């Protein structure tokens, strides 16, 4: 089990109803974490999500470590 923090933005923040949460999880990777949270929240289908750990983009296979801050990134729409 690792202790992590998840931050939510935009459509995911509205869906979850919170901008962040602290979690204990047995998920091995950020991909596993997404699936765990998807089971809990039934995230809206958003096409290709990206993911960041500790304010850097990373692969879905990135291992979770204690203290990580994870953000799932819906399709962006700046400009």
């Amino acid at each position, binding site marked *: 089990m690792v202790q992590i923090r998840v931050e939510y*933005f935009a459509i995911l923040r509205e869906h979850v109803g919170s901008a962040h949460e602290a979690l204990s999880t047995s998920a091995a990777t950020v991909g596993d974490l997404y699936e765990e949270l998807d089971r809990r929240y039934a995230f809206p289908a958003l096409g290709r999500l990206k993911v960041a750990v500790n304010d850097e*983009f990373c692969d879905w296979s990135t291992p979770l470590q204690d203290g990580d801050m994870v953000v799932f990134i819906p399709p962006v729409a700046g400009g």
Partner: protein
Amino acid sequence: MSHFGFKRERFDLAPHQALLADPVAGAYASFEGWVRNHNDGRAGVLYLEYEGYEQLGVKEGERIIAEAFARFDITKAHCIHRLGKLEIGELAVWVGVSAAHRDAAFAACRYIIDEVKHRVPIWKKEHYADGDSGWVNCEACAAHAADTPPLK
């Protein structure tokens, strides 16, 4: 030195443009994104809300501008993106590039705005006159939900 930034309130562009001045620079190309009253063929946009993942956004914005310096012979470049509630006509994003010659200034300005729109984690929620609202890109994605797995 910072080349990319977010602003949560309206701001005056003049002092930011002034930073791009340089005696060797003969060309300045800029782009401004303004909030318009329509999107994807639908009229009646009342206002927008921009939300950003600022810590990662600034890093990605700085990377984009570093790429522009590597690709094009430019003198200075800056980009500022607004966050928060924006009314029709308000400045949402500004890119300014100075260079000795205009080819590089135009190309770099275009490169920066294109990459910022595709890569910087910023989201835009439209609010329509009829009370409808929605996150741009996300709603379209949801329409194709059955086709694509959520994880690439």
